[in-house]
């Protein structure tokens, strides 16, 4: 993963922001207040007409607020000229809006050129950015019309990152992309974000995308009310009201499971035996999870429930289903359901035994709410990129 000059990220604060449009009875945004810590992705989500895009566009003064204030890194956005402010904020929109008359390199370096970077520095930055978005360098001389939708969207992200802004605004950036490529672009962006750690305001109407992309989610209701502002896990576990519960969907339990990877929970221990060794005490001791491994330590069979003095390969049940530690709890549950909810073996990245996951473990995980600082939480609080 190439890492572009990782610069700064700035905290963002909405302070009692109201926006009324002339001729409208109710304000589009009503006393909106929340804070996004530096380096976090904050997703604004809600049904159409909830003011999420309006809220985002207030930040770079594409729309001017009626009252209240927005602070980037503690400084009011009212203190700078709109054009200067915007050059310091990355901006990605659904239809990308690349300039059709400029090639990809020139598109990427629009903002650096506005900022007066010299030719050499622009060229170096463009090369770096193409690498960052995994586009071959020769694409730099093409025009936007010669790229696919997904490639154009990547270029849009590169253009937004060009001058290394501390804050990025993304308005349904993957909304016009087909589902398969959308998933890929989301994952790419999460990996990128892990490297660059920008503060991001991300607008979407898709709650699944919000859960996947957000460190924090702001759920807005029509009329610009902020109903809940929380981590994805807490929104799924403890919806603030019926509106949020309906909005996140009846399957919120499953969605929560999808948020947690197997390597983020404490798996049940597994006892590893080789051919000829005896299974007895170990199996009786606690869980009864016993795995037969070969000489390289790779699992070859399941010996759960067995007790014998000299294990023969023939005694072991073949491992029909195993999970990877990067799979989610939802993947684990889904696989268990095809096999009478029996515990399943989890393998680590090297293919060695990591442990067992059981229905009880999944149950435990659902009872804990991530984002709480409960000391009993065995779950890693860090949100990780989906792979």
């Amino acid at each position, binding site marked *: 993963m190439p890492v572009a000059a990782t610069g700064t990220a700035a905290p963002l604060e909405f302070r009692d922001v109201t926006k009324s449009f002339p001729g409208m009875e109710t304000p589009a945004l009503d006393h909106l207040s929340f804070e996004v810590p530096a380096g976090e992705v904050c997703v604004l989500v809600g049904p159409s007409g909830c003011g999420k895009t309006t809220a985002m566009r207030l930040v770079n003064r*594409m729309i001017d607020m009626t009252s209240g204030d927005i602070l980037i890194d503690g400084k009011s956005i009212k203190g700078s000229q709109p054009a200067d402010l*915007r*050059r310091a904020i990355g*901006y990605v*929109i659904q239809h990308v*809006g690349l*300039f*059709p*008359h400029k090639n990809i390199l020139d598109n990427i370096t629009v903002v650096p050129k506005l900022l007066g970077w010299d030719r050499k520095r622009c060229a170096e930055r463009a090369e770096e950015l193409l690498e960052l978005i995994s586009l071959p360098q020769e694409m730099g001389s093409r025009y936007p019309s010669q790229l696919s939708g997904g490639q154009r969207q990547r270029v849009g992200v590169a253009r937004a990152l060009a001058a290394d802004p501390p804050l990025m605004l993304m308005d349904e950036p993957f909304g016009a992309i087909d589902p398969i490529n959308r998933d890929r672009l989301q994952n790419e962006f999460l990996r990128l974000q892990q490297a660059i750690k920008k503060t991001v305001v991300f607008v979407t109407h898709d709650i699944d995308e919000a859960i996947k992309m957000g460190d924090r989610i702001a759920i807005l209701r029509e009329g610009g009310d902020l109903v809940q502002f929380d981590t994805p896990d807490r929104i799924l576990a403890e919806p603030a009201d019926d509106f949020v519960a309906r909005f996140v969907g009846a399957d919120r339990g499953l969605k929560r499971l999808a948020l947690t990877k197997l390597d983020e929970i404490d798996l049940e221990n597994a006892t590893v035996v080789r051919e000829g060794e005896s299974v007895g005490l170990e199996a009786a001791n606690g869980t009864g999870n016993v795995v037969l491994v070969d000489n390289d330590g790779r699992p070859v069979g399941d010996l759960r429930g067995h007790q014998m003095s000299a294990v023969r390969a023939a005694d072991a049940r073949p491992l029909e289903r195993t999970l990877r530690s990067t799979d989610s709890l939802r993947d684990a549950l889904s696989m268990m359901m095809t096999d009478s909810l029996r515990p399943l073996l989890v393998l680590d990245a090297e293919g060695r035994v990591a442990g067992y996951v059981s229905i009880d473990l999944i149950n435990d995980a659902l009872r804990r709410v991530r984002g709480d600082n409960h000391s009993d939480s065995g779950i890693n609080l860090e949100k990780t990129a989906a792979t």
Partner: protein
Amino acid sequence: MIGQVGGALAGGPVIPTFGTTSKCVLQNRTFCWDWFKDRWSSTFVPALLQHIQLSVIAVVIGFAIAFVLAVAAHRARWVIAPVTFFTSLLYTVPSLAAFEILVPITGINYFTVEIALVSYTLLILFTNTLAGLSGVSPEVLDAATGIGLTRTQALLRVELPLALPTIIAGIRVAVVTIISLTTVAAYVVPAGLGKIIFDAIGNSVFNTAFIGAGVLCILLALVADALFAGLQRVLTPWAAARRGG
């Protein structure tokens, strides 16, 4: 540069009596190459150059006026209606009438000719320039503003380059129209290829002068159109990329 076309035809007889008069000319056949070649450098070339000059001046001045009006109308939409009304009015005045109307006011001179010609370019150039500017997609403009271009920067670096194909298309129509109308202008001020044609019509019908000037006028229009088509390709390589070329 603008001056009287060589005296060979000025008010002279239908069939010039000087030089060797060929059989073709005496019989007034459809086209006499020898007569045409004899007068190529003395009559036709100066007339052609004068014609080009009259047309170029008209289109350049017309474009300058139309461009300013179109940019103004793009910023302030209320400008569109009055400008369209006025330029349409100018455009609909029959060309001969326009010259006749102007002569009492501005006299029989090139100024009169240019005023009339310029007024015919305005509607086409204004409409096309405005259409080009308005045709820039809203998301491109939103992105331009959102990443920090000022209005003027957005106009110069995004809107105008993207409007260029439509603007040039307008110039092509205007150029061809004006090259043709400049011929009519010779009715007021004897100049350009029109003078040769009017002389030929007025004095009788000497086919060669009439056809020679007429064909030159058509060729001039075609060449000018091709030049601008080429210019458009050179200036907008991205448009070719979009067409898959």
